[in-house]
């Protein structure tokens, strides 16, 4: 029996925005569905509706065999009965309780011994030993995040809801914990819905992506598909990454890594990726340089023979879809495009500097 979330609903605020989401569904126990969009796009409201903290006006929310909400049947299951793990953006750790008591809050019905064992196990599992007696204000951002996860996970939730799980952290911590969180989500095998406005986070953590804008779903699909093929200019603007291609690290030496993308090999900078790692290769269209004819020596490390597929003019700018062994996009000014005399079917060289190839580990 599949234990998946299936939801289509609308939350209408009396004097404000309407948030509509249709056919939100998770796909299997290990899947992470990312709700992606700018702040104010309604993604947190969707998450709160799934948690039962907001009651939608229309539609329905089902999980597996359970109906959590049904507008017509007037069904509304309280958050207490949904068995979810909810981690809000600022973690909302109880400030008056110690780490151990925060984690134990949701398992108060267990017997004392069992509860203590469970809390101990969870603390060890998430590497929080030695912090049991601390108050939340005596913890670092990363530790707080783990306590919030521990508090949610100790209840063995059937669905995990994470609201911007990394945004409260500073840059270096965020980078480190992103990897940890990815490992954790893989291990857990609990369907997860995650809200983020950060495309790196979406790429690193998500399987399915739902892009929201102005309270509506504007595109959905696999993360890779949505990021590399935005269906509208709006979505392209929101995802802001024109080329996203899965690849694998071949070798890594002295801060340079070689990755396989389609049949091509690309060189990028990275010090921590090991050979064999799965990555997403991201290239922004404005970082792609096009050269026609035989190029003599040039500085960019990556020279790919490509075929021009199509040109789309958007004001003074031309977006060019290219094909090497994987789809690649470039943006040129109209002028540059005319000087190169580019037409569909032309064979050109695409140059990209190594630092402009961005690798996101999977």
């Amino acid at each position: 029996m599949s234990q998946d979330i299936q939801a289509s609903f609308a939350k209408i605020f009396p004097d404000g925005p309407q948030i509509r989401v249709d056919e939100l569904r998770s796909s299997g126990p290990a899947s992470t569905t990312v709700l992606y969009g700018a702040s104010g796009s309604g993604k947190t409201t969707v998450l709160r509706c799934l948690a039962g903290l907001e009651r939608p006006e229309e539609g329905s929310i089902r999980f597996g065999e359970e109906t959590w909400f049904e507008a017509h049947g007037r069904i509304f299951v309280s958050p207490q009965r949904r068995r979810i793990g909810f981690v809000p953006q600022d973690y909302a750790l109880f400030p008056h309780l110690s780490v151990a008591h925060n984690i134990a809050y949701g398992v108060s019905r267990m017997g004392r011994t069992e509860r203590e064992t469970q809390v101990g196990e969870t603390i060890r599992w998430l590497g929080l030993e030695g912090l049991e007696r601390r108050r939340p204000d005596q913890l670092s951002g990363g530790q707080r995040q783990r306590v919030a996860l521990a508090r949610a996970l100790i209840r063995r939730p059937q669905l995990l809801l994470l609201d911007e799980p990394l945004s409260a952290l500073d840059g270096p911590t965020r980078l480190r914990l992103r990897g940890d969180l990815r490992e954790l989500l893989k291990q857990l095998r609990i369907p997860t819905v995650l809200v983020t406005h950060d495309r790196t986070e979406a790429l690193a953590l998500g399987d399915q992506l739902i892009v929201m804008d102005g309270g509506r779903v504007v595109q959905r699909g696999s993360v890779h598909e949505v990021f590399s093929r935005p269906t509208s200019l709006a979505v392209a603007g929101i995802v802001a990454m024109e080329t996203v291609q899965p690849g694998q690290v071949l070798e890594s030496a002295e801060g340079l890594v070689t990755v396989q993308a389609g049949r091509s090999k690309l060189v990028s900078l990275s010090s921590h990726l090991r050979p064999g790692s799965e990555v997403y290769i991201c290239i922004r269209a404005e970082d792609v340089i096009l050269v026609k004819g035989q190029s003599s020596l040039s500085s960019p490390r990556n020279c790919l023979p490509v075929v021009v597929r199509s040109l789309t003019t958007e004001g003074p700018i031309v977006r060019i879809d290219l094909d090497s062994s994987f789809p690649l996009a470039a943006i040129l000014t109209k002028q540059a495009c005319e000087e190169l005399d580019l037409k569909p079917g032309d064979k050109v060289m695409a140059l990209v500097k190594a630092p402009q190839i961005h690798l996101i580990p999977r």
Partner: protein
Amino acid sequence: MSSEEWQLIGFTARMAALSTLMVLPVGLAVAWCLARLQWRGKALLETVVTLPLVLPPVVTGLALLKLFGRRGLLGRWLHQVFGLDVIFTWRAVVLALAVMSLPLLVRAARTAFEEVDRAFEQIARTLGAGEWRIFLTVTLPLARRGVLAGTLLAFARALGEFGATIMVAGNIPGHTTTLSVTVYQQVQLGDDAHAWLLAGVSACLAFLAVVASEYLVRGRKR
């Protein structure tokens, strides 16, 4: 001070303590309803609870006298069902003090509850806690300073209440006479020295309670 005076102070403090204990559950419940629920009649309850703060105490006392007198609505019922007489007994003292100090507790506790971030209560819901448990383990502990400050203020108010007490409890030495009633009586009798002594005692008690209450409220803001 004579043993009579000590007895008087003891009696007044006991009455004030009893009324504070009575007011606590009611006051916290009312404060929580005002802070956390949206319902029709909320404004009415708010007004009724605040009224004793601005109404002349003797008027509040008069209303209580009519309500709890033997022919009053509640008084008759209490007399018939429990055989309880309220008016001109120590129960009337507690009743008058409770009604007069309720607004202070409600106002302080309401503010304290409103300052508790709802995110904590919501996360407790997702962790399976019922509303009652949330109140006891999240809302109340996080609002404790404000609630305690309000309780102290209510107690201080009860210690010095005069107008409503004299209306419903009268002045029966050893049974219903409180500190402030005695001060009034001594002045009437021309015994100023005695009156000043007792006035000094009430001033000290009130001062301590307000200082403690202020300290708690400031500490919360820091």
